[in-house]
């Protein structure tokens, strides 16, 4: 009963994916069942990168510089400063049966943000590192002093990791918006659906 023809599946998938793009985002919302991040003592900065358990209380600073408040981030947004979203994104898996349903839900982020998935993990492949370096070089026109703001979800170490990694590449004006997409949305910052940068 549940083996509709591949053609039909493909057609329906197409229709649904178009419909889904305009549907309410199935976004991950703010923590309601755990204490708000402000109520948890912020941990100190760490050596190197956070390797796992990324969604957890984060430090107040990145390399000693305090995370941006919403007002600060919003002001930078109005100046058209580069915003970089590092939410990870699993593509349709290699090896998944061609007729298996795979839903790539739209990711709604800060308007105009560039989405560079996977670059905020604790350890990244040489391929991902190359992708990150190339993307930053392109987005900054090779200007190491260009301002950039990293974010992902609220209280997520991936944005902290990515920002720190960008500094290790030599970028000198790296900022961090720790409240992430949730903080931006709650403050009614402009948002739009984004797709990963190539």
């Amino acid at each position, binding site marked *: 009963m549940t083996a509709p023809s591949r053609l039909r599946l493909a057609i329906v998938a197409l229709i649904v994916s178009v419909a889904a793009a305009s549907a309410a985002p199935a976004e991950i919302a703010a923590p309601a069942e755990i204490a708000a991040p402000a109520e948890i003592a912020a941990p100190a900065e760490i050596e190197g990168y956070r390797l796992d*358990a990324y969604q957890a209380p984060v430090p107040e600073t990145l390399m000693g510089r305090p995370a941006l408040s919403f007002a600060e981030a919003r002001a930078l947004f109005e100046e058209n400063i580069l915003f970089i979203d590092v939410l990870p994104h699993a593509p349709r898996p290699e*090896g998944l049966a061609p007729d298996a349903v795979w839903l790539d839900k739209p990711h709604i982020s800060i308007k105009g943000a560039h989405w560079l998935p996977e670059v905020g993990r604790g350890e*990244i*492949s040489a391929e991902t590192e190359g992708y990150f370096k190339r993307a930053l070089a392109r987005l900054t026109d090779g200007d190491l002093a260009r301002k950039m703001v990293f974010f992902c979800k609220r209280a997520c170490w991936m944005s902290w990791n990515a920002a720190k990694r960008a500094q290790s590449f030599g970028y000198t004006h790296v900022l961090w918006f720790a409240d992430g997409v949730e903080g931006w949305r709650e403050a009614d910052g402009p948002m739009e659906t984004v797709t990963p940068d190539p």
Partner: protein
Amino acid sequence: MPTRRLLLQCALWAPMAARAQTADSEETWKGLKPMFFGDRSIDEAPGYVTLDAPVRAEDAALVPVDVKFLSREKGDRVIAATVIVDENPSPLVTTVTRGRIDPGDFDLSLRLRVNSYSYVRVIAETESGALHMVKAFVKAAGGCSAPASKDPEEARANAGQMRFRSFAAQSRAEAQAMIRHPNYSGMQMDQITRMYTPAWYVTSVRVLQGDEELFSMKNGISLSEDPTIRFSYAANGKPVRIEAKDSQGGEFSQSFASDGGVL
């Protein structure tokens, strides 16, 4: 590694708000339903199938669910059931089809992956072709991307090994089939290469008693590592045969004595 698992559950994109969780899942289901069932109508009439799932799962990569095909005095018995997790990027867990339709209950338990807070739903199809649904909301996250519990070489070396166990000695008319297989979802990071491990999973399972098929399954990537299925079973002296195929063309089978012993 229970500690690591626990950390990961906290780590991965857990939708943590009470707000609109179930509404989001229902919205997703609206989009999914036509992909699996076209324009066929699905109701939530009781008396056909039940679903038992934890409200909050300890391990999002191993969420136990029990599906019961209910006995039907007035006929129109359930012949198949599709298990779906709305919020998994690949939502199909399995479609289970009974090989033999007898008047009694038929229970089936399995373990599945839950990627973010979601309804798990079971859509039962009856002899007349009607569809009846039950659902349960499960709070678990990260189950599709949680690292495998075994290293890749060990998993590959043992893939396709099977176990069969009867619980008759515990006075329960049940048995359990276990198939060793990493059942990679394709969403798990390889701990060495730091790339996504390609999907490699058990796509079909058949369990036979003698020549008679008890049930069969068509699976997606949302079934847990080492697929383990517990099902209603009454030994009748005939051997039990488990057959499985995987997404890389692997074919596995093994026969067991009626009471679960080695043949």
